[in-house]
């Protein structure tokens, strides 16, 4: 133990420099926002690009532009979310406003972070509403990714930015959807894709910021007959790339959700814009 204190001089210098840099960084962060950003999973830089989304954009244009951004390398875990709830008791089940969470399905097994066992602590958190997911991301000085950002990163495999043309890869990402939900999600930390992002496939469905922009179909949730004027403008969006079934399933799922909903297989991760919005 004592050894630790006898750091060699050059290292000591480096250490001091690092400490100084870290301090400056921390001060900058403290200035930027009152609460320190908790230590969590790293955010990975995603270089932007032009991308063919499964959602056909209007006016015949096929490609969407994705700006540079950062994506959280792993989905938010049970331990991370529960630590957030402990610091922000307004998100505890029983406290959270029912306009933000569906009380029947929001964190039904919530307990103190300290009593989580190691296996469940590392699982992706599920049963969180869009509002709760968003609040968590704000707490990491981040936001939810947009659908396009999510889809852009999810197209990558370990070596290629866009592996979607590969039938074998498509079959692989589709296979997890057949795993029974009762089996429970494994821990986060699967293989990293070409960007260094993990678990885009194979673990959970994930919230996106603009889930309510996916106007896939005549809204079948409200159950009334007034469909005629339901959507202004061009109406429902068209889906492309029908061979990419696993991605289309995500669109279908997200488009069916209300912001208060939560399910046992729906989690989230966060993203950060590079240019801070004013």
């Amino acid at each position: 133990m004592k050894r630790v204190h006898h750091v060699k001089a050059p290292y000591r210098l480096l250490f001091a420099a690092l400490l100084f840099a870290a301090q400056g960084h921390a001060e900058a962060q403290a200035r930027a926002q009152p609460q320190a950003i908790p230590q969590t999973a790293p955010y990975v830089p995603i270089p932007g690009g032009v991308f063919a989304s499964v959602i056909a954009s209007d006016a015949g244009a096929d490609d969407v532009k994705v700006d540079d951004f950062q994506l959280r390398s792993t989905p938010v875990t049970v331990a991370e979310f529960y630590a957030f709830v402990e610091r922000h008791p307004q998100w505890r089940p029983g406290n959270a406003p029912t306009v933000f969470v569906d009380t029947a399905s929001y964190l039904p097994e919530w307990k103190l972070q300290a009593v989580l066992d190691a296996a469940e602590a590392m699982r992706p958190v599920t049963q969180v509403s869009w509002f709760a997911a968003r609040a968590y991301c704000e707490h990491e000085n981040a936001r939810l990714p947009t659908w396009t950002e999510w889809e852009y990163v999810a197209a990558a495999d370990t070596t290629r930015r866009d592996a979607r043309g590969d039938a074998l890869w498509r079959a692989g990402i589709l296979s997890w959807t057949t795993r029974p939900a009762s089996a429970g999600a494994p821990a986060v930390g699967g293989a990293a894709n070409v960007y260094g992002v993990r678990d885009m496939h194979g673990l959970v469905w994930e919230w996106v910021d603009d889930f309510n922009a996916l106007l896939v179909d005549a809204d079948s949730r409200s159950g009334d007959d007034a469909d005629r004027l339901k959507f202004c403008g061009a109406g429902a969006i068209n889906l492309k790339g029908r061979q990419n079934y696993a991605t289309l399933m995500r669109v279908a799922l997200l488009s069916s959700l209300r912001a208060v909903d939560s399910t046992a297989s729906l989690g989230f991760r966060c993203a950060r814009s590079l240019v801070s919005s004013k």
Partner: protein
Amino acid sequence: MKTLSRWGRAAAVLAAVLSAGAPPAAALQTAVQVAPLPRDSIYQLAVNLTDQQGRRLALGDLRGAPVIVSMFYTSCQFVCPLLIDAIQATEQKLTPAQRERVNVLLLSFDPAHDTVAALRKTADERHLDDTRWSLTRTDSASVRKVAALLDIQYRALRNGEFNHSTVLLLLDADGRIVARTSDISKADPVFLKAVRSAADGAARRPLRR
């Protein structure tokens, strides 16, 4: 200890001076706190809006009277005018006393184009009563939140238009969603009934104070 207590005294004196300087009206306002918002009130969401008169208001400032709520954008050619028509048709079926007690909130999907001037123009063109109608804008992240809260879907198109679900909602005086219709071809009778009963149960509370 001594320095500490000296500091303590100084702080106490400072606090006394500060509180003495505070206007008594403000102190009174803090003292007379209203009941906490119900957990199912959409006024739980902190959102800052700006209306057609350039006034800033929080969503929760609408508390106290029933409100008909919808989302729109001023350059919309087809559905949004019908949306306003449907609200007006509903209002026309109310008694003058009922009408006085219901406010209207429209929030724009399009903060990039719907400036205060654009909102003002629509309010004037449609002869909307400024004392009861608020045509509002907010930042784009808040638009997404409010739409999520109201379960309204929308999507910006490249040509500047928006796809969106067309819905009228009715909030009670505490901001709870009590009725909802997507039938904007007329005054939806079920929705109208809900508006009438909300108005009958409410006290007159104009938007402008």
